[in-house]
């Protein structure tokens, strides 16, 4: 009966809105989605963070342009012996070290310190500095972002899709099916996320994953080389299954006893029809919210895995590997891990804020537990 009372929603704002919307008539014939959309449209914070996320995605998609027109270095182009012109002066991309003979005594000259952020001083090169092999951090950041986002979104999508199917099966059929699927969830759940992720990531990255069978000459299965991004994606997708599957199963279980499902059964609808046309639309908003949450978490998990060397394989850049690679050069080249870290924080924050707004608009009670420790 009472509204949630979360918003500071005074009489004035309500009157304004009502006028704006043309009163209650305006909502006639609008789907729950449209109404959620209307709520979302009013949430300027969420929308602006969605804008931030879109901006990040667009920037990352433009990475090849950046590489060819601005930095003139590809994502994996090393340039360790190179020299760039900064303010007309030639500067080594990597400071040169070694032993020099000084007064007949060998003396160590420390080197290997990559050039720092140039902010345009080097004519578009090394805007954010170089890494220890002279690669352009800016370029790698954009390409790394592509990989990180791709991993996050794809892993979340796969995980969500699998979980939805499992949750529907478990919740709808109950009994033995539910028992088996729930135990499967329990089992993955019983593993510490990071540990399972790393174990799988490490194991698969050595020689890849090559399992499947041939059917009439067509290969059905997975054939992934050890350095494939898909390994990271599948690992992350796998470990998150119970985190989405469990809450969804609960929802399906609750929905399953709703009268409209009984009504469909009474009309003679089959299980598949009920699962996909009656139940699925009703968990769809939770799925959407969980999906955004899982994207954020998948991106963070990628960082954890890559940091521990079980994620994206070098030399492919990803924000996680970049942080890991830069971790022991913080004092001479802090940008190496600082920039990707900031990029992740902004991206994940944007997803989280937008996800929050989405949840407020759709208002399912989505709760999810994930560790990254």
């Amino acid at each position: 009966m009472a509204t949630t009372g979360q918003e500071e929603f005074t009489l004035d704002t309500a009157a304004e809105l009502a006028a704006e919307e043309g009163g209650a008539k305006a909502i006639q014939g609008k789907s729950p989605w449209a109404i959620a959309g209307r709520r979302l449209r009013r949430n300027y914070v969420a929308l602006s963070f969605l804008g931030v996320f879109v901006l990040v995605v667009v920037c990352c998609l433009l990475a090849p342009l950046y590489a060819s027109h601005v930095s003139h270095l590809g994502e994996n182009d090393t340039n360790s012996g190179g020299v760039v012109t900064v303010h007309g002066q030639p500067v080594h991309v990597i400071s040169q070290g070694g032993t020099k003979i000084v007064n007949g005594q060998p003396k160590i000259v420390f080197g290997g310190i990559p050039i720092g952020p140039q902010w345009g001083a080097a004519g578009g090169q090394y805007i954010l500095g170089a890494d220890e092999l002279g690669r352009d951090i800016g370029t790698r950041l954009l390409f790394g972002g592509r990989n990180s986002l791709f991993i996050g979104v794809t892993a979340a999508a796969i995980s969500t899709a699998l979980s939805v199917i499992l949750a529907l099966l478990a919740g709808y059929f109950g009994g033995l099916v539910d028992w088996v699927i729930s135990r499967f969830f329990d089992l993955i759940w019983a593993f510490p996320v990071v540990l399972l992720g790393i174990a799988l990531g490490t194991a698969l990255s050595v020689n890849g994953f090559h399992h499947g069978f041939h059917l009439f000459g067509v290969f059905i299965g997975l054939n992934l080389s050890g350095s494939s991004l898909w390994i990271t994606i599948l690992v992350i997708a796998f470990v998150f299954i119970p985190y989405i599957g469990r809450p969804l199963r609960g929802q399906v279980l609750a929905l399953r006893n709703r009268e409209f499902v009984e009504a469909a059964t009474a009309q003679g609808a089959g299980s598949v029809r009920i699962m996909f046309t009656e139940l699925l639309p009703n968990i769809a908003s939770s799925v959407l919210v969980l999906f955004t949450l899982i994207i954020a978490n998948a991106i963070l998990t990628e960082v954890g895995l890559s940091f521990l060397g079980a994620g994206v394989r070098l030399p492919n850049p990803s924000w996680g590997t970049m942080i890991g690679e830069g971790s022991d050069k913080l004092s001479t080249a802090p940008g190496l891990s600082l920039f990707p870290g900031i990029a992740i924080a902004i991206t994940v924050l944007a997803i989280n804020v937008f996800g929050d707004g989405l949840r407020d608009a759709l208002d399912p009670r989505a709760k999810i537990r994930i560790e990254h420790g």
Partner: protein
Amino acid sequence: MAERLLEVNDLKVRFATEDGIVQAVSGISFELERGKVLGIVGESGSGKSVTAMTLMGLTRGVNAAFEGEVLYKGTDLLEVSDRDMQEYRGNELGMIFQDPMTSLNPVYRIGEQIVEAIQAHERVDKRTARARTIELLRQVGIPNPDTRVDNFPHEFSGGMRQRAMIAMALSCNPSILIADEPTTALDVTIQAQIVELVSRLKDDFNSAVIFITHDLGVIADIADEIIVMYAGRVVERGSKRDVFYDPQMPYTWGLLGSIPRLDRPRPERLHTIEGSPPSLINLPDGCKFRPRCPHAFEKCKAEPGLENRVETPGHFDRCWLDVEFKRSHRDETISGGSAEAA
């Protein structure tokens, strides 16, 4: 004349929602005296609960606005601060809600919850409070109250929970007991028990009762005075006999006629009130019942005031129709086809 406990003058309550402003209650007035039962009837959404909760100060919030007066023994409760309102709640005004399943905190024992209510207003130790709780439970008819006091709400049946709610509401001897549809969720047999209990306890505790329901049958049993609400307004108000035997508002006729009654022969067709209650955001002009009223005429485009239009004092209605016209036409609505069937 008995002590006047409560006087509500032109109370208006509005809520801001995202769909617009809800005029939940628009100008409701009544008085209540000790020992009396005021029945409020009306359809779902007519503002019964909002009225009741506003009396208790439970509708306050950033999205609510109030107008009018709620004078309790002379104090305007709308002006009382939230903190001071705590003294009135439970102590002066007790309340029972519709759904006994959710109105009790599931994680505390029944006894604890009643003891808490007692201790909120009186400086008594646990033991005394508990003894009183057991006594209260006995009074509301819970068997073995000394063991039942330690049960959790889910171990009680619906009827017993509602009894426990009543015990809780009465624990501090409030002058007014507000019962918001206390029987709606219960079976007829249990409903009868609860109605009987409330009217008995009203006398035992010497309090006044505001009894909200949408069931005219229940109210015929218990109320002294009746308010009929429609679209946030009082459309008819009068003594029980006035409202049942001399209803002035076509809406009241409709209500009476829509009930398939056991005390009358089965009609071919039930009377119906066509259409559905108006949205409280976009109220129609004039008489709010006009769109559904079979007798509406030109004058109804202006809203009638709540006035005494009949000879009986204290019987008010909001209808432009001529009293004589009403008296001659209402029976076909109220008794429906029964006349022809007989």
